[in-house]
């Protein structure tokens, strides 16, 4: 068992965890934040993407024990003060169908826009390479991320 202390969405958490517990299961079952999803178990689908010390990371490829001292943001944290421009753009552009990939997509987009505030289409497609969407065919998601980048640039929001 490992004792871990971390911050998720600004809240401090402390737990004893099994060495083999995956971060995604910690987030979903111990922190009860179920917006982070599991879609594949092998790091391919990105439904479990969270922001881990500022970077988009797949929480199914990370052990909870590795998150000791980490600052994590999940989809629930992004929406804390009203909707983030990325969330708004996803709604506006019909970038959502079943919604299962959506939180992971949004977190990856957040990671992209933090590093590159004005990505072109090819850069958006490349940044979302680690996120699978089975419903939309990606086009409206890509439009949404481009739209969010525009809005964020105009409003200076991060």
């Amino acid at each position, binding site marked *: 068992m490992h004792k871990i202390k971390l911050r998720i969405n600004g809240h401090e958490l402390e737990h004893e965890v*099994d060495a*083999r*517990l995956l971060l995604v299961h910690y987030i*979903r079952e111990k922190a*009860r*934040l*179920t*917006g*982070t*999803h*599991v*879609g*594949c*178990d*092998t790091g*391919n*689908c990105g*439904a479990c993407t969270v922001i881990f010390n500022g970077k988009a990371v797949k929480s199914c490829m990370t052990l909870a024990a590795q998150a000791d001292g980490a600052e994590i943001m*999940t*989809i*629930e944290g992004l*929406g804390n003060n009203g*909707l983030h421009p990325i*969330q708004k753009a*996803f*709604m*506006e552009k*019909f970038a*959502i*169908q*079943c*919604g*299962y*990939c*959506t*939180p992971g997509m*949004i977190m990856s987009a957040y990671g992209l826009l933090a590093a590159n505030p004005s990505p072109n*289409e090819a850069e*958006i*497609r*490349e940044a*979302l*390479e680690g*996120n*699978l*969407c*089975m*419903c*939309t*065919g*990606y*086009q*409206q*998601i*890509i439009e949404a991320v481009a739209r969010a980048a525009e809005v964020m640039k105009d409003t200076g929001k991060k």
Partner: protein
Amino acid sequence: MLKLDEILVTRNWVGKPVQRQEDLRLVKGEASYVDDLDMDCHHAAILRSPHAHARIKKIDCSRALALKGVIAVLTGQEVAAQTKPISARAITRPATQYVMAVDKVRYVGEPVAIVAAEDRYLAEDALELIEVDYEALPPVVRLEDALKPDAPLVFEEAGSNVLMHDLMEHGNFEEACREADLFLKETFKVHRYSSTPLEPWAIIADYQKSNDAFLVWANDQQHGRSITNVCNTLGIPIHKLRLMVPDSGGGFGIKLALWPYIVILSLLAKKANKPVKWIQTRTEHLMAGSHAPDANVEIELALKKDGRILAVKIKDIQNDGSFVHTAGIYGLIKFATMVGCYNIKATKAELLSVVTNKGPTVQNRGVGKPTMIFVLERMVDLAAKKLGLEPNEIRFKNFVTPEQMPHTTPSGEIYESGNYPECLKKALELVGYEELKRRREAERKIGKYLGIGISAGVEPGTSNLGYYYTSRGTPEYTGNAEGAIVSVDYDGNVNVLLGSVDTGQGHATTVAQVIADMLANTPDNVSMNSHVDSLISPFLGHSGAYSNKFNDVDLGAVIMATKKIRDKMLRLAAHMLELDVSQLKFKDGKICSARDETKAVSFKEIASLAYKKILFLPEGEEPGLKEIAYYRNPIAKLPNRKDFNIQLTHSNSVHIAVVEVDVQSGMIEFLKYGIVHDCGRQINPGIVEGMAIGSTVHGVGASLLEDFVYDEDGQLLATTFMDYMKPLAMGVPKFELAHMESPCPYTLLGTKAVGEGGSLPSLAAIANAVEDALAPFGVKVTSLPITPEKVVRAIQETKKI
């Protein structure tokens, strides 16, 4: 049938890209998929067969049960003792299969035992401790092997691996062949693939001892039929099962096959005496979560020299794997698209459903129709080449014309509306066909291989259920219908319950748009919870999300229930305003006098009368404002081998794919992809666009990437998304889309199907483009997927992909 003007009193919302009501919860991470439900549960893990074909001689669970934290183990023997076998639908030979393997296993991944433990990690540990003594049997994997006279039998009692063998002829086939100048024949191989919803199957089952009943939460796609199947299999009355479907992370047909697991989980919950949760892993999903079957299809066209197609003949051999419930369906449904968009007078079909030691199959997006359109549209291109015609030219010669609508195909399918020639014309303009042809020639000169692929497809919707019994006799299900409950609450807001589920289609938004225009209101005054609860939802024996029936019968039920509400509200308003119903109209969320709009009553006031001021109600009027309606498609015919319509609406589209093939590496890159699409009247173009593109990307994956490869021992080699490759944002084209709207005369709003959409014509569009690119090498595409390896091999050696 009601006319559009009688249904919609305003035109403010239908046809507009109204933002989806579903999305706020989804972007905030507040959805409730089954795994999100906060319940005190045990957790289940399933022991699956490592063999494709083997006898189970002994199972010893004692070590697993001794592990601390393990609550219960259930084996196939115990399950079989408490259940009936899985019911078959289309096959004609006997084949006994239980929801869990009993005496033998028939595919890698078949459930052999299930464990309930305090957490999932422990349950997985316990699987390692179950000892199963297998006696391996020779597996039968490939179709060719399954058909050999001395092939091992997957089901001994059937006496053959062919569980359905049917032959049907429609129109005057002999005469058509006599008139023909030439015949063209080819065999195509289509592989196994799946639309793999991102949320795998998920079930929580609870057994309530006091009333001997089951409570189940599952992301089931067709709860109406699942309830029947689960109750029949368990031998319990329907009221002993309450099935709830919360949010569902995609379906695409794949979630039609999870009901056998509801049976298993229900029995496990009963044994464990506590709710048990099972969340399928992706590997389980890929092994045993059902596929579209692989198939060999032989197709022959009878043609006139000028390019007219007189008849089509197919011999369709499906590798249906090992799920008797679905076996046979993929053959029969081909009649819905047997002649594609063309006016072909006669057809002949020989259909074989073959069982093998591959995984189970289910109705994956399009169900056999993608294969049918693929072989037909490939053949049309091959015929054009043979006759020296352009691919567009041969299609223009054969299209059913708008003047011929409604057009009945030889087997009885009714194409109700559409302008197929105009659709192709628009598509050619959309992509700039003539310019592309010039570019193709110019690039070839510099060693670059660009190809243009055209494919035209009908996209049938609303299943006329029971077609799959055509081979057996009287169907248990016929026609198609759905139910809805519409109420106006005390506060005047509209509340809807639908018999169907939502797996991402935005049903609540669409319903709100329609009701808003029926009541001169706004969509934000209409709310629909898309979750299903069998205790309260108005479901039928086949309710669910499948075959693109939503736009037809689901909306039909909503419209008819809303109409009942509207009529009652008018009667109450007339009473309140002391006017006649004929003097009233709906306006801005009120009912008012048509002459003097100041004389008005709000929905809230009307609802208040209906629910609270019972003594003020008009004589004989029932209290309350809640109505239920079931709506059936009006043109479904009883299946009859000579004349049947398998599906009841027919959208159409033309896809034009433009690819460049790197002849060194075999890599295929999209340069352009144009879609012109006609799904009748669109309710929400934002949603329609997503469906049209998303379904096409399923075709992109199926044509180029995805393949459930089995080795000769029946081991599946693609068990994660590393080996089973899905399309990524990087590899898919940017789609150019144009729409046409030919309203359907047989649906209330003139709508038609859009969900399966692009998954049908895309396979051939891409294959035709690749073949066109490789024309200088004389390569012929006769199989899918078109992998880089196959491309390189074809160029170097065989000339065939």
